[in-house]
């Protein structure tokens, strides 16, 4: 009940205040379209690096939005009240991470195939790319919540969040990209890296709220 109420509120806030997913997608688009301008119109080269660039750009775009998870609630005192609620703080962190995934992770993952065209991504890779991103973005939101919680008490902690969280994203990046590459060229079957990506996401969904809640307690007290 409380979990659903919090999720519903965060989704409604994201829709009302706007800018969240739109800004992330805009940044994603800009970053990706810079690459062909930088490396030149070598279609073979672009096609080869496309999965890696799309994944790295997605991580950067998601990083920009992480401070939205807790910052507003911390500043306006809502977090104080949430700490005194019957709902454990771990589930508060989970609900807010889930809302972040729905409002940012899903739109980014769904816009990636369109941007793949810019990089001459092979048609056969578009499905696997969207799938790996949909499966991998929960890990980005949930792990990101740890960094967002840790930098809560700092003013302008956005850059520090990136420095803290980016290394934790490395496994997601590696297995996300290798799953897409496996779908294009093989020889590894698509399922092998893909299932590891699923495992990374599931583990982060379970474990990250514990760390994020500890970070929130430290920030408030």
């Amino acid at each position: 009940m409380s979990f659903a109420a919090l999720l519903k509120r965060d989704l409604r806030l994201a829709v009302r205040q706007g800018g969240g997913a739109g800004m992330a997608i805009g940044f994603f688009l800009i970053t990706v379209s810079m690459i062909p301008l930088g490396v030149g119109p070598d279609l073979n080269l672009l096609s080869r690096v496309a999965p890696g660039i799309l994944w790295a750009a997605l991580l950067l775009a998601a990083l920009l939005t992480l401070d939205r998870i807790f910052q507003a609630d911390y500043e306006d005192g809502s977090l104080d009240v949430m700490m005194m609620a019957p709902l454990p703080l771990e589930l508060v962190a989970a609900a807010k991470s889930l809302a972040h995934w729905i409002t940012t992770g899903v739109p980014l993952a769904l816009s990636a195939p369109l941007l793949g065209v810019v990089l001459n991504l092979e048609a056969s890779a578009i499905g696997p790319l969207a799938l790996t991103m949909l499966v991998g973005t929960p890990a980005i939101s949930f792990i990101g919540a740890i960094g967002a919680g840790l930098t809560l008490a700092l003013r302008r902690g956005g850059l520090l969040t990136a420095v803290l969280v980016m290394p934790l994203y490395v496994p997601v990046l590696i297995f996300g990209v290798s799953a897409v590459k496996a779908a294009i060229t093989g020889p590894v079957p698509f399922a092998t890296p893909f299932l590891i990506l699923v495992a990374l996401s599931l583990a982060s969904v379970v474990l990250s709220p514990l760390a994020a809640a500890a970070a929130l307690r430290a920030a408030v007290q």
Partner: protein
Amino acid sequence: MPGADAAAGPLSRVGAPSPALYKNSAPAASRSDVADEGANESERSDDEGRMRLIGEGLACERGGRELFGDVAIGLSRGEGLLIEGPNGSGKTTLIRAIAGLGRFAAGSLTLEGGDAEASLGEQAHYVGHADATKPQLTVAENLAFWASFLGGGDIGDGLDAFGLHDIADLPAQFLSAGQRRKLSLSRLKLVPRPIWLLDEPTASLDRVARQRLTRLMDAHMESGGILLATTHMELGAAFAQRLALGSAAP
């Protein structure tokens, strides 16, 4: 969402703030009552009958400097404590630490009676300087969220508390500071909780709203609630006890 509630049950200890400091030393009888969920309401009022908030030797520090030390609190149901002191004397620090939103450097705080399954923070309302309202949501939506998030309450009661019916559909971003404060204080009536922790509750309230708040506080204490409030001016309500925190050292 029965699934979420079931998941919340066993984990709720984890969410309790500062478990080392808050011991719910309820009598053994009330612990066995808790198993009977049907009798929740009557058992709750039984427990409140014995409810007592006791603090001994409480001390808080800020920036390595002791704000206050050896503060004792002893409040039974129906009693109020007014915490007075100049700026910087640690009023907010004390009340936040009691709410579980801060730490005591020394001392122990115990809640006797009350709901043995819930931490002190879960049985208390804290209304502080920050209003905990969302500018993008309307007044009624703000109240509806807190009602469902904090575990039930009637939005009508919340709107009644400070007469916010006329602006119920107004987004909170268009409220004045005083109206936002009223909305924040409405949480007290919205979700019944036995302990109220109010930090400068009259800030930016007009005279009529201050009188309403005084009546709310008196009614809360008459109905057996415990009230702690900090202030640097008169609140009007009938506080049984006063605590003067020392003058702020520069």
